[in-house]
Structures are given as C-alpha cells and as structure tokens.
C-alpha cells in the first residue's frame, strides 16, 4: 500500500479495487449475477455479512483482503477487510454525487485523512501522490488555417464524391496525465483560493489517445445509411403518384405551368423527355410537380450521370471523378468501373438521397434516368460509361443490364434498316430464345426460297442442280475446305448469328432450366432441345451459304476433329456417323436460310424492353443495385486518404477489397459480413481521422524547436493507443509543444469544461483546459487506534470529477495494542 509504483494505473481492464487501493490480490464476494434481485440486500443483512467476513478473516488470518460488493453493480460499492500480523485493515468506499466544497481540494481531503486516523499530533509525514487528468480535444481547437475538409458537411456535399471524416467533433480525446508523485502533502497548498497544483508545472506527464466508441465516421456512415434503404419496398411509381397528389392538393397551377415550361424549355432534349414521360404516364400528366429536386439541380445531376448528353455539353461543367486504384485491386469485386454509368448512378443516388431529402428525390431522379435510357434506346444513341460489348458477369447486375442495353443499341444501330421487316415476329415472341424449339424456327418461316431438306434427303449425292441455287449469307470462303461432292467449290463460312448476350440472372435462369431436366426421364433430350437453337441456326446459315452441301461438310467446318483422315481416306468420326443423333436430327430439320431470314436468336427489342423494365424497380432495389459501386467509391475514398497520410492502419487495402469481393460474390448477401466490412472500414477511417487531426495539431507549434519529436510523439499516440510518457514533463520541449497546442489562455470560447475551475483563479501565461479528473492518494504510517499502538499503514484514495467524488480509504488498526 505504500508502494508508489502502482499509483494511478491506467488500464481500464483492471478491477476498480486494484485501481483504488493499489491491491494486487484480493477476493470479492458478490451476489450471483443469475439472481438479479439480490443486489439490494438490506443493511442489516449487509452488516451480518460484513461481520462474518471480519470473523472469517480474523479466524483464518487471511492476508488477502476480502471484499463484499453491495448495491447496484454499476455503483461499484465495496467494503473489505484484511488482517496481517496483528493489524486489521478496513477498506471503505464513499461515493458522492454532489461534491462538498471542502472535499474539492487537497487541503480538505487531508483534513479527512487526518481525522480518520484520529491521532491529532502525529508527526508522521503524510505523502501525497496526485494526478490530474486533462482531456485534450484536438478536434475542437481552432486552426488559423482551417483546411477545406473541415467544412465538409451535408451542405457542401459535392456531387460525385464521398465525404470523409468524423461526423461530429470530439471523436477522440487525448488524456494528458499530469502528476506529482509522492510529494509531501502538508507542503502543498491547494485550497479553493490558491493551488500549487498547476498542471503546467507538474513534474510528470503522460498522454494517451482514447477514441470515442460511438463516434461515427462519414464513409462508414454513408455506406450504412445507404444499405439500410435496400429494404424499402415501395415502387418508384408510388412516389411519383404521391408527388402528383401533393400537386393536386396544392393546386398551384400557374406556378406549375411555369416550372414545367422551364423544364421543357431547357433544351430540346428535355422537351423530348417530358413528352416521352407524358406518353408513358398519361394518367399522371403533371407528375413532375412539385419536384423534390429543382430543375437546375436536376439538370446538373443528369449532366453528371450522362456526360455525353447534349445537356452536359451545353453546361460544360466538370465533376469530381474517382480513379480506379492501381494493381487491379477490385478485380474480384462485382461492382462497376469508376468511369462507368453504373458508378455515377450510385454516387448520384447517394447525393440526391443526402441532399434532396431522401427516397422521394431518389425515385424522382431514377425516373428521369429511366426516361433518358429509353430515349437513348429509341433513338439508337450509345450511352457513355458502359464498357464492353457483352454483359460482363464479373460486374454487378446493374452494370450488366446497362451493358445489355448497349448491346441492344448497337444492334439497333447496325440493323436499323435491313432487319426492319423482321420486327413484328421478334416482338411477338417474348419468351427467352433458349425456350424456342426447332419447330418455332421452321413454322415462323413464311417465304421459302428453296428446300434444302428435300435436296439432302432425296438426292444427297446429286450435285448437278446445285449451281442454280443462289447462295446466301456468305461471310468468306474457307481457306482450305472444298465441298465434298463438288470439289471445285470452296466451303463458305456463313454469316452466323452470335449467341445472345446474357446477363447473369438470365444465364442463371437458363442453367436452372437445364438443372431441372435432371429429374426428367427425357432429361438429356430436353437439354439438347433447349440448347440446339444456336446449332440449328448455324446449320441453316451453312446450308444457305453452301448450296449442295452435306452434313459432312458442315462437320468439317463446325467440328473439324470429327472429320478423321486416315491413310488417304477420310470419314466422319464414329460418333458423328451414327444415325439418329441430335446432330443429324438438327441437320435434317435445319432449312437453308441465311441469318437475315432466320428467326433471331437475339431480339434487341425484347431485350431492351427487359432492361428498361428491370430499371423500373422498387426503390429499395435502386439502393441495392447501386450499393456495390457506392461501397467501392467509399473504399477508394478511404484509400486516397491512406495514400495521402502514408501511415499504417489496421486493415490494408487488399484485405478491404477482398472483403468487398466476398460480399458481392455468387452467394447470398450476408449482413454479418457487411457489418464486419463496415467495422473494418470504420476502424481505418477512425485512425486516419486521428492522424489527420494530429497533423493539423502539430502544425500549430511548428515554430518551436524539436518539432519533429512532437510530430512523432503524436503519431505514436495514434499508432499504439498506449499510454506514453512525456519525458521531462511540462518543462520538456515535448511538454512545451503540448502546452502551446492546447493553450486555452487566448481562446475566446474558454474550453468545453468550466465548472468549479473558475474558482481556482490563477492566470498563468498559458492555460490548459481544466482537469476533468483529479486524483489524490494520501498515505502515511501512524499508530492507530491509540498513540501507543504500533504504527500501521493508512491510505486514502480520492477521485474527483465534475460529477462525483469517490473516496476509497484503507485504514489499519493495531489489534494487539488497540
């Protein structure tokens, strides 16, 4: 108890008894946590318990203190006793919510201590260890050169960016521990009027950085808020209808007309858009109004989303962009590239959600986006920010759908004139092309030019009349192959239909259909039927391009390894020469039709409508489908900060990117993984914010010597979050830096905590914020209970904060001479 080494241990994990009494070993008796009612034991029972403990300790001569915990566990109230070589030490705790004035100073505490020992004229020296804890809040300090990022708030939220930083001030605190170890208590003057205990004079300083556990950070919060919206089940239409009703209720017709005029007059494009929208929502003629986003802002956002639109060119504004980080770090993540439309959509949705009042505005914006996409499709205009020419299944579904729309637009551009007549047929069949059977292909045909089937079946060896047939749909002559039965003629590779591009949901459906055939008796045949459309199309095209060809010719082009040449003779492979195989059947069924006259495997009209109706989703789905990009944007933002600060943080980029990939894999989305991701992201953001604050902080004292030491010191505080001594205390260069940085003397707002400190009037040159916690340990060796008793050890701990005072006393008495 006399050892000063263990004074004021900091570890929060220590048992409070260890902190208050400096004990290493002790026994605590407490009511069972399973029996919650028992905390409020009556005082009588408590006394009985206490005496029995005293008895027990006395009987067993137990040197280890025994404690009894009572009252609510939160109050942490204990009584205890120990007995060593004829001395009994009683441990008591006082906890007061209101601090009596006389207890606020060392002098007052000293009086109590002396009173408790009860030996008035003791000449024994009373030693005092004192520690003041000052909470330094770097965040609240005003900086002369306020960096821009400090102004980041929802008001200055910029389109195309993700905010970074703490959501509120005081996201962390630096505890500065200033202490006076083992001083002579009577020599220190600490009264209400004057105090020698000036932190700036304290011989020992130490500091520790502690994060506010519940503080929120912007990137993590942004993503969380966004993700929460994915559960919303309202449709976009319901929001638009609501807008409509609002409008009717308000009856602000003139104003409405005016705004509508503004909207439509903005550019010819706008005009077309609103005309289109009228056509679609004829029953909601003025759904535009009242608008959650005003025309100017809406145009701005749309120009951001569609940088290739006339509107954007007209405005000529440049927007913030994200750049893909190097090393292909997001390769596995199913999101979309940073310069893609899907990516911009995500950021625009976020921006509109935050800035223009939530989902209503998002629904409004999304509707505009759908209209623009429809406009692009119907006018055959490509969309900027959609890469590739096939849906890339390594990206998110939204991006795939947009890629699909691009496929459709390209197809439309390519074949706008020539395939026009085929459209009525295409529009009729809404089912997936994979469901189309061979029979469909045949029956759809109306004008049959020639009948290859008959030729092949009846006169397979007859090559004489072939020349009269006009070949169709030839792409190029095969470099080597000649027709088997007409060796002067090259085999022509036909123009073929490319297999229809598929987004992953359609592909999955297709796979599931195949899987479903497993149980069927005719499973294999059905699987073949489901998949032979493309083969039949190739066969048809081949027949058309090569009049007079035979199955062997087709196999030689399509599956060359099934044409075996052995010692001069060549023949079909065993498997291809069988009669009645699916290949032969298909060949026989296929009619010579060039691709142009075939039923199309890919009908861009149907597919484009599918994409557009996909886009017309529930509001929650808007968030869900843009979430991958928002999360990617959040990570990139975080990475930028990591790069600019060049510090080590808990999770490296690759780990975070991997977590993102895992979240958006083939598997079902796991909210648990999502939470983990957010936690990791937040921890990085938290550290980065602290580093950033520290950097700003250290700039304040740049003029003082040994500035680098200070910078390193601050950096270490964030890095290991351990208690770090300030060597040399207040007077050291390091101490000087801290004093300058947290100097409250010349600041107008006077710190966050005032309270009782105002009484302690002493105006030094520099003033640190007033201590949040003041702790005193008084100890002495004095005879007790009587002067003639053997001297024993007494110790009193007092902790004063603004809210309460806790005094923990351990007073011993001599049992032999008492």
């Amino acid at each position, binding site marked *: 108890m006399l050892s000063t080494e263990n004074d004021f241990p900091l570890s929060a994990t220590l048992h409070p008894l260890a902190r208050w009494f400096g004990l290493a070993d002790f026994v605590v008796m407490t009511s069972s946590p399973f029996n919650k009612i028992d905390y409020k034991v009556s005082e009588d029972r408590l006394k009985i318990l206490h005496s029995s403990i005293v008895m027990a300790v006395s009987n067993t001569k137990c040197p280890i203190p025994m404690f009894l915990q009572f009252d609510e566990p939160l109050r942490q109230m204990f009584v205890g006793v120990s007995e060593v070589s004829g001395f009994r030490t009683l441990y008591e705790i006082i906890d007061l919510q209101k601090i009596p004035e006389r207890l606020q100073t060392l002098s007052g505490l000293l009086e109590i201590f002396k009173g408790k020992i009860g030996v008035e004229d003791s000449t024994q020296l009373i030693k005092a260890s004192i520690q003041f804890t000052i909470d330094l809040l770097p965040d609240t300090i005003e900086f002369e050169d306020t960096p821009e990022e400090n102004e980041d708030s929802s008001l200055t939220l910029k389109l195309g960016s993700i905010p970074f930083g703490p959501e509120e001030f005081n996201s962390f605190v630096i505890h500065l521990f200033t202490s006076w170890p083992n001083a002579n208590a009577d020599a220190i003057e600490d009264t209400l009027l004057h105090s020698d205990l000036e932190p700036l004079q304290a011989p020992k300083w130490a500091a520790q950085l502690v994060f506010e556990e519940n503080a929120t950070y912007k990137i993590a919060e942004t993503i969380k808020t966004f993700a929460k919206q994915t559960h919303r089940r309202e449709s976009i239409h319901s929001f638009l209808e609501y807008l409509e009703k609002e409008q009717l209720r308000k009856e602000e017709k003139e104003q409405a007309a005016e705004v509508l005029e503004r909207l439509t007059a903005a550019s010819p494009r706008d005009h077309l858009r609103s005309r289109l929208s009228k056509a679609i929502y004829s029953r909601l003629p003025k759904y535009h109004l009242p608008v959650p986003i005003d025309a100017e802002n809406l145009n701005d956002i749309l120009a951001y989303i569609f940088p290739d639109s006339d509107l954007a060119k007209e405005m000529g504004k440049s927007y913030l962009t994200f750049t893909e980080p190097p090393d292909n770090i997001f390769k596995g993540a199913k999101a979309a590239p940073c310069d893609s439309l899907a990516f911009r959509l995500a950021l625009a949705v976020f921006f509109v959600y935050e800035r223009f009042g939530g989902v209503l505005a998002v629904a409004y914006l999304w509707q505009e986006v759908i209209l623009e996409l429809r406009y692009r499709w119907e006018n055959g205009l490509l969309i900027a920010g959609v890469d590739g020419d096939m849906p890339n299944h390594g990206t998110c579904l939204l991006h795939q759908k947009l890629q699909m729309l691009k496929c459709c637009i390209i197809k439309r551009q390519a074949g706008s004139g020539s395939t026009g007549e085929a459209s009525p047929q295409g529009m009729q069949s809404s089912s997936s092309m994979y469901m189309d059977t061979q029979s469909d292909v045949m029956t759809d045909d109306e004008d049959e030019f020639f009948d290859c089937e008959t030729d092949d079946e009846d006169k397979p060896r007859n090559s004489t009349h072939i020349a009269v047939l006009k070949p169709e749909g030839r792409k190029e002559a095969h470099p080597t192959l000649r027709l088997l039965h007409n060796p002067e003629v090259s085999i022509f590779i036909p123009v073929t239909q490319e297999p229809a591009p598929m987004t992953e949901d359609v592909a999955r459906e297709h796979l599931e259909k195949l899987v479903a055939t497993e149980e069927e008796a005719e499973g*294999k045949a059905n*699987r073949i039927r489901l998949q032979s459309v493309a*083969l039949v199309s190739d066969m048809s095209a081949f027949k058309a391009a090569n009049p007079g060809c035979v199955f062997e010719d087709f196999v030689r082009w399509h*599956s060359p390894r099934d044409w075996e040449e052995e010692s001069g003779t060549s023949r079909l492979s065993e498997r291809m020469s069988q009669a009645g195989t699916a*290949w032969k059947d298909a060949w026989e069924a296929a009619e010579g039709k060039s691709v142009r006259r075939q039923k199309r495997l890919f009908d861009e009209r149907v597919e484009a409508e599918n994409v557009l109706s996909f886009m017309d989703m529930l509001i929650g789905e808007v968030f869900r489908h843009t979430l991958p990009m928002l999360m990617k944007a959040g990570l990139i933002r975080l990475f930028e900060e990591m790069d600019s600060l060049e510090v080590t943080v808990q999770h490296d980029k690759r780990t975070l990117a991997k977590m993102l990939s895992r979240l958006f894999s083939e598997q079902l989305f796991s*909210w648990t993984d999502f939470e983990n991701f957010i936690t990791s992201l937040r921890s990085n953001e938290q550290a980065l914010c602290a580093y950033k604050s520290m950097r700003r902080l250290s700039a304040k004292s740049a003029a003082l010597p040994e500035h680098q030491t200070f910078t390193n010191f601050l950096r270490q505080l964030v890095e290991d979050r351990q208690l770090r001594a300030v060597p040399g205390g207040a007077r050291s260069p390091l101490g000087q830096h801290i004093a300058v940085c947290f100097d409250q003397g010349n600041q107008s707002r006077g710190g966050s905590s005032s309270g009782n400190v105002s009484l302690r009037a002493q105006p030094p040159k520099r003033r640190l914020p007033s201590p949040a916690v003041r702790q005193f340990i008084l100890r002495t060796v004095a005879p007790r209970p009587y002067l003639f008793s053997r001297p024993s050890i007494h110790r009193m701990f007092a902790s004063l904060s603004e809210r309460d005072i806790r005094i923990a006393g351990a007073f011993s008495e001599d049992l032999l001479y008492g």
Partner: protein
Amino acid sequence: MGTEAPITTLKLLIIGESGVGKSSLLLRFTDDNFDPELAATIGVDFKVKSLSVNGNLVKLAIWDTAGQERFRTLTPSYYRGAQGVILVYDVTSRPSFQKLEMWLGEVDSYANRPGMVKMLVGNKTDNKQERVVTRDDGLKFARKHSMLFIECSARTAEGVKTAFEELVEKIIQTPGLWEQNMAAKTVNLNEEPTADSAAGCALLAGELLSVEVFADNHVSVLTTKSYFLTYACPLEF
C-alpha cells in the same frame, strides 16, 4: 451411405477441345460405362453424382461442355461458381494438347472462385500405338500452371475415378473454397441479429431443425416453435 446427407455440393466443369473424350470421361465416372458412339455434346450437359471423400459424402454437379469453337461463346456463364475445373486433352492428339493454353486463358478470365482447383487430364491412354503426348509433357504443363495431373482412359476406366477423387479431395482441403459455400447458404442463428439483418434472422426463433435453400432463393426454415417459414432471401447480388 445411402441416407447420409452430403456435406456440400461442388460444381465441377469439364473443358477441352472437341473429341478428347470429356463426355466419355463423365459417363465412365457416373455410370461406369463406355460408349464409343456417344454423341458430341451440344452446348453443355451435366450429371450429378455423390462421392465419399474421407468418410464424407460430397455431391458433385458436373458440367460437361462442348468443345467446338462455335459453342464456346455460350460457356462463360458455366464457369462461374465452379470449384473445380477438369481440363482434358487427348494423348493421341498433339493439337488438343497445344490448345491447352487457350483453355486455361478462358478459365482465368471466366472463373470467379478464388482458389479454384484445376486438374489436367490426359485421356485415351489405352490407345498406346497412337500416343503422341508423353506423360512427361503433361506433367510439365500441369506443374507450370500449378494444376493437378493424371492420365486416364475412359475406355478402360483406368484412372478415371482417381481423377475425380483427387480433384474433390483437393477442393475439400482448400479452405474457403467450399465451407464458405455452406456458410452463406445457411442462416447462422448464433449471430446476434442486427437491425439490418432482421429481415433474415429475427424471423427465426426457437431451435433450428432444418434449413433448406432452394434454387430460387427461397428458404424454408423449420424450428422447434414448429413453424415453417418460406421467404425469399431479400438480397442476392
């Protein structure tokens, strides 16, 4: 073993040039049969077979693809989610061996499971007099691309079963390749449901008796509170 439930379902994919014997290999493995006249695959075919690995029953969904170039554009979507790929060549055909690089390129660009196991299989070893690719050639290639390697004959059945067993064993030994699959498809009741995951977990109370996930993302849950829930998992990306 008949009533035992499989611990996991693995997706395997068989690729390679046309005519190297991919379908024959599969037929030998699933039905222990050989048909020299087996028709060339159109698009893809698939078979399901259960296999016991170290005492655990594993269900295999094996996708057999067509090798012809014209079918190849159809196949990218089949790669996704596959835990194992069997790349087959014909030891009697040098060109089928030379095309392996091209096939591997396809695997790398379409497969999306980190840690997916690749196996190189040289088929038709029974045809000794026409053999042109030596065992050493195959082994070298496999080593260079860190693949498992085995030679076999679908005709004589030699090495076929071993090939599949080795592949599956390797997949089972690869952490994260299949456990993850299980974890994601079951509802974890030990997890304290957060407000966000309420849609999933909060519905569940009592002790879990069975969870089944169907292909259309419907989950049926049977608990001791004896209600049977079927709901669509709200999120899949």
